[in-house]
């Protein structure tokens, strides 16, 4: 019976009932999604309008939690400090990770020998858990026993060997660079897919016209890979503005050293869950308000960006 139903609906001639049955299949996934994602979001949204007495909800306070975050010391300082770090994270990810990924993708696109092998090799770090990546790089970046400093000292660059994760001037950049090393394979795949989607006849025509090198990239490639650029930018933006796992794995949730690695997500985590130290009190109202702000930033910017860039996409 069910066999027939499937067959018939494939032919597009199923009865109304069979159509309904087919459409019910996503239901379990939808239920899980609603409970785990939608409900949590709605709940956090609701929590942000209440004051909290420890772990229990107290009075409805309207926008007080938001006002506190933006106007009261030290919350406002911490907020802008963290937001600045997220923006820096995004900028560096765009320039370094996606820039290098594009160059690599272009080289692979022009069919170097062993392109498949390189593609896998570059993507490989992505298969490891972020926690493992964080742990390994913590060892590599260790100021006294780490491979990086040992290497720098061996080649005579003693002054370059420093406390990468202990110095507030280098800590965040170090984490973002590890993030870029980890993420470059993913960006590469998206660029490569975009490059390979450029119709062969256009490439052929350009060749016949003698368009080569940078001119080829500027005139042919750039306009045609706008969709890849949009995807990569939106992904990087979302990723940078919810940056947490790697920061947590390498530095914990306290923003150490001296608040130089604090992001919106670690700030949220400290408020909502009391931080890594275990002995701190929690502030669920502020934590929820931060979650709502993060959601607003990410969703508004992503939507606006996608709408704006749609204009630049070339219809083929």
């Amino acid at each position, binding site marked *: 019976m069910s066999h027939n139903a499937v067959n018939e609906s494939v032919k597009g001639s199923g009865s109304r009932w069979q159509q309904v049955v087919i459409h019910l299949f996503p239901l379990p996934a939808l239920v899980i999604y609603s409970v785990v994602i939608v409900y949590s979001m709605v709940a956090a949204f609701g929590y942000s309008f209440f004051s909290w007495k420890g772990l229990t909800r107290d009075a409805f306070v309207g926008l007080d939690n938001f006002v506190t975050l933006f106007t009261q010391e030290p919350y406002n300082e911490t907020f802008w400090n963290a937001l600045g770090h997220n923006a820096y994270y995004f900028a560096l990810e765009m320039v370094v990770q996606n820039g290098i990924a594009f160059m690599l993708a272009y080289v692979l696109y022009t069919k170097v020998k062993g392109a498949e092998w390189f593609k896998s090799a570059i993507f490989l770090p992505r298969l490891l858990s972020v926690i493992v990546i964080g742990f390994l790089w913590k060892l590599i970046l260790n100021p006294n026993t780490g491979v990086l400093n040992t290497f720098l000292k061996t080649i005579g660059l003693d002054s370059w060997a420093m406390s990468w994760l202990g110095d507030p001037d280098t800590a965040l950049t170090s984490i973002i660079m590890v993030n870029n090393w980890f993420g470059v394979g993913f960006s590469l795949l998206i660029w490569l897919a975009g490059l390979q989607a450029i119709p062969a006849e256009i490439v052929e025509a350009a060749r016949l016209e003698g368009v080569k090198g940078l001119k080829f990239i500027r005139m042919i490639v750039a306009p045609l890979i706008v969709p890849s650029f949009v995807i990569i930018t939106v992904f990087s933006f979302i990723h940078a503005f919810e940056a947490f796992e790697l920061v947590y794995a390498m530095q914990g949730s*306290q923003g150490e050293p001296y608040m130089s690695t604090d992001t919106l997500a670690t700030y949220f985590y400290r408020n909502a869950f009391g931080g890594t130290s275990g002995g701190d009190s929690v502030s669920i109202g502020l934590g929820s308000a931060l979650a709502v702000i993060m959601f607003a930033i990410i969703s508004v910017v992503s939507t606006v960006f996608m709408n704006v860039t749609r204009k630049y996409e070339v219809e083929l």
Partner: protein
Amino acid sequence: MKKSVSTMLMVILLTILAACGNNGGNGANEGAASSAEAANTATESETTAAPEATSEEAVRLTIGSWRTEDKAAYDKIAAQFHEQNPTITVEFAPTKNTEYNTVLNTQLMTGEGPDIIHLRPYVAGKQVADSNFLVPLDGTPGLEQIPSELLIAATGSDGKVYGAPILKNASLILYNKQLFDKLGLTEPKTWDELIQTAEALKSNKIVPFAFGSKEGWILSLTHGAIGPVAYGGNDFVKQITTGQTNFTSQAFTDSVQLLKDLEPYYPDNYEGIGMDDMRNLFVTEQAGMMIMGDWEIAVMRKMNPDLQIDAFPVPTKDGQASVSTWVDGSFAINVNSKHQEAAKKFIAFALTESFGTTLSNELVRQSTIPSVQSGDELIKKIASFSNDAAIATPYMFNVYFAAGNPSSKTAFETSVQGYLLGKLKVEDVGAEVQKSVDTWFKPLSQ
């Protein structure tokens, strides 16, 4: 037709969402209501639980904790308890250290959680008690032998005791005895002698102090141990908690300065060194001393069984001795536990000398019960310091100034980090802490 199918899907989706919303709403309301009335339900459940205990039915108690590494010891203790109370089985079910608070808070908010809660000391534990998730334990047999300064760790804002303190910590100076013997060094009795000892180690290419400033909690821990050298211990703590002095005072500033005074004796690049590296330096005998809590002794012995660890109190400038002490954790009863009577029996058991002795020996830690004598020589030595009122002083930031959001302890850690990195002046540290303390702290009555 297509339209009708999509309409139907929309309806289904909306129903699900509505149902979720409803459930959520009710759940949250129930949570709030049940906790608001928790004081009442606590007494109610006591009376309702009474017949359950007399019926001699088998009861299974669970203990929630962050001490995954202590499972074997608690299993042993659970077996002892079961022997004395054949109807009650106890299961120690710990959660990973860094996730325990999150898991526990979520469980408590939904009216669940373990029967016995391993309570974090001071502010975090107080917050659980003040949320009415715990049963008051005043009058529990055995509680009277716990010194009042330890009971603060599990006392709610209402002045009731909500937890039985189990273990206590002391921070002092651990040292490598073999290294000291080899270099002819002895335990220093004054601060100047400590500096000379550090110099001697340094000239022998040994790192004097296994220390690093990468993790903030190390800074407050270290300051907690050596700070009394500058501010004088108990008298200052009394003055600052009663509002007679504050963190901008010279005494406090001098205590922060001590952290910088020891800088020549820290390892290279200490700003990039965290707890793991500190431990490695000490365990691999590259460092001679470590300002640390006594719980690390068991951990480090396991890493290097040949290591001969010994300890001495922090020597002050006028030849006194100082160790900082605080409670590590307490056992409390979940207000929603269905086995209140059995849980109370277990708490009373946890306050007996035999429990304290077993736990102290199994975990190589100090029991909170004053009459317990540890079987481990070093722990016994440390306990003799921390039970001596002339030597022991509370770990001030943990005991009295861990409240606020972010906590004043965290504010202190951040500014000390800034100070050691050259971003703040020494006076700024006290000013920053005072700014944080002013947002919440009301001086205790004298």
